[in-house]
């Protein structure tokens, strides 16, 4: 087989590394050596504090799977690497995980940019990347499993709510985001959506700040200005990420903005961003995810206590009493993968992909999530959370049932 690879490669130059690298785990099925899962989460650099949460969640879940006897009678082993928040390194290490470590599948990435740098690698090697974050959508690869909602199924309901009576009939929208693909795409979609609601462009404003921007003086002043214009209630759709979130909130509070005057819908705000902030003046600002840790279900109580025990048992730096949506997504991802492998009786990409279609389970948010057979997106519930005085979110609104994921939003004019 080596020789054939050699010839064909020389002949056409079109043989992928898959030829040599991937069949291994597929063939090895039934043997007793552990099945490897690549965990591609940064433990250093700007993304470290977020992604290391997911790394440990993944390891915890793998332990749980193994505790239940592993899959196909084999133990599962997580191979941890550190891309150090350096986007090209993600591509680099994903290659290493697939080709050198022969991982059956990858779990990883937080930012879209990291996913996009891994994408060509998993496609070239025909492997699977399980991606636990909500993101801009507009993408569908047979080599990526999307565990969180695309905007059209998570963001739009929240917008609708704010435009309704309960939300205060928002008529004007100030969109402030970090300058990269996720906010840009979200806002493009929103603009398309607002058109259908006959909201004039004069009632919209779009601003972007660089990553890690911490000075929001000018922006907040502009927001106050914007809100003072006639034409109805103004709200802020905030898609800034990371360091910028607390900075933006602080400045807004300092300049006297309250949710009752100008509500802020922070699409990427999770409990961890509120750590250390005095949230009393922030009460009422909103966020929307598929899961908030205050949701009251037995599954959630279970998951939260599992996490608490795991953190304390392994003496991890994380807060034991804080669980955020991406962690839940990671957990779901690994479990669904395990189910799929068991069903397929193989770890080969194709088999797993087939088996994955239609897999379902009950998630901590209380919904029965299920994998969309066509798009490889996960059907999940949707929630709107309202910041409370206790640095957390109260659940303001829940979708009745799981929402159909729409990868390609109809509101984004295709170029």
């Amino acid at each position, binding site marked *: 087989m080596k020789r054939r690879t050699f010839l064909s490669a020389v002949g056409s130059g079109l043989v992928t590394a898959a030829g040599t690298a991937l069949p291994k785990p597929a063939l090895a099925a039934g043997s007793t050596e552990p099945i490897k899962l690549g965990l591609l989460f940064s433990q250093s650099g700007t993304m470290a504090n977020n992604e290391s949460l997911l790394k440990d969640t993944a390891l915890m879940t793998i332990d749980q799977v193994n505790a239940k006897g592993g899959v196909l009678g084999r133990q599962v082993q997580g191979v941890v690497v550190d891309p150090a928040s350096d986007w090209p390194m993600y591509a680099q*290490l994903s290659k290493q995980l697939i080709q050198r470590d022969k991982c059956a599948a990858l779990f990883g990435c937080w930012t879209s940019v990291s996913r996009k740098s891994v994408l060509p690698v998993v496609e070239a090697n025909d492997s699977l990347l399980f991606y636990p974050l909500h993101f801009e959508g507009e993408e569908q690869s047979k080599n990526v499993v999307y565990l969180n909602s695309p905007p059209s199924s998570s963001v739009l309901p929240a917008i609708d709510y704010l435009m309704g009576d309960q939300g205060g009939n928002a008529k004007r929208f100030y969109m402030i985001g970090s300058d990269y693909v996720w906010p840009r795409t979200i806002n493009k979609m929103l603009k398309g959506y607002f058109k259908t609601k006959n909201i004039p462009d004069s009632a919209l404003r779009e601003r972007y700040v660089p990553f890690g921007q911490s000075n929001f003086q000018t922006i907040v002043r502009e927001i106050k200005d914007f809100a003072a214009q006639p034409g109805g209630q103004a709200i802020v759709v905030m898609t800034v990420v990371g360091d910028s979130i607390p900075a933006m909130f602080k400045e807004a509070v300092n300049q006297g903005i309250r949710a009752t005057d100008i509500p802020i819908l922070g699409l990427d705000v999770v409990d961890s961003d509120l750590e250390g902030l005095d949230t009393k003046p922030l009460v009422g600002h909103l966020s929307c995810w598929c899961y908030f840790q205050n949701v009251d279900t037995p599954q959630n109580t279970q998951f939260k206590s599992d996490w608490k025990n795991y953190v304390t048992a392994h003496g991890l730096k994380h807060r034991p009493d804080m669980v955020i949506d991406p962690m839940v997504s990671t957990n779901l991802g690994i479990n669904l993968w395990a189910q799929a492998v068991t069903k397929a009786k193989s770890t080969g990409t194709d088999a797993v992909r087939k088996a994955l279609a239609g897999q379902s389970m009950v998630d901590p948010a209380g919904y029965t999530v299920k994998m969309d057979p066509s798009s490889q997106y996960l059907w999940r519930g949707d929630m709107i959370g309202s910041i409370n005085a206790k640095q957390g979110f109260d659940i303001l609104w829940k979708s009745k049932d799981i929402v159909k994921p729409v990868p390609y939003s109809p509101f984004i004019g295709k170029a």
Partner: protein
Amino acid sequence: MTTLPETAARRNWTLSAFLSKWMEIGIVPVLILVAAYLPFAYFAIPEASALHMSLFGINLIGQIMCFALLALALDLVWGYAGILSLGHGIFFGIGGYLMAIYLLNSAYAETNVLPDFIQYMGTGGFPTVWKIFSRLDVTVLITIVFTALVAGVFGFVTFRSRINGVYLSIITQALTYALMLLLFINDVGLGGNNGMTGFTNIAGLRIAGVSTQIGLAVCSCVVLVVAYVGVRYLAHSSLGRALIAVRDDEARMRFLGYRTHTLKLIAWCLSAVIAALAGMLYVPQVGIVNPTIVSPQLSVEIAVWVAIGGRGTLIGAIAGAILVNGLKFWLSSQLPEVWPFILAGVTLVIVVAFGNGVWGTLKAAGEEANR
């Protein structure tokens, strides 16, 4: 380099002496051997054997070669003309981005899918300027010219107004920083923070293809060899000596009737072009280009590679780059926590204790032995 054949007769052969004299030529066949070995190591040698190299490893070597090229470029201006540029990331970046534009063009030609950043910018297609970059050879040519032009303009103005030493370093760093910030803006139209990715083919070959990847790695080695030979020739011509003279006492050179800023400009532009070539080779191998490749961090790091290897010795620069990056790739996957400390420690020791780096020290020892 300063010892000449006739004295070689009365050498007493020490290792350092041998290395310092012969490796400067010897590195050429070594690199060529590596280049020749790569495809062999992948295809012919069975996976079981220790000599076999995974595509991953080969790809790594390819990238490291690009860094070595980058270090070589910096050593030319720093080691010889005495210009410590903290802005070579700019030229690296220019090369990388222009290459990326070409790759996107050819990807579009194949798949007919526009990259997402073009889509959400809503321009509905590539800027017309990009059409020029639809062929590899043309792209390479334009990149060389363009880089030389940019470097030329900056160099001319700066050297003219006699900005040098510390000030020049700081200015170049500021410019690098500025460029990075610019590239982060999506409205600039180069993909912002995500940069550009999703390349499918280069010059008709599938970019992820084994032989393409190996080919690129080999190509990097070859370019490195060629660049090394060229730069070494220049360094040993009396133009090179003039550069050294400028480095050590620019004013004096003026009183000898030299237009020192012209001398510097020549070295500067050449170096910039080499850096750009490094970028062009680097991007298709990592499969993504984004603003971090013009981060001030990287640009300083290049200087560190050179310093560690020993500046003004070309081969030292190459050795330094290979050493540091090899270690980096190895360690940052093994024990990421420790890597920065090691790098810092080594740099400090070298800078404080052995001013002229590993190779420089070796050389000195070598000449000591010959005296």
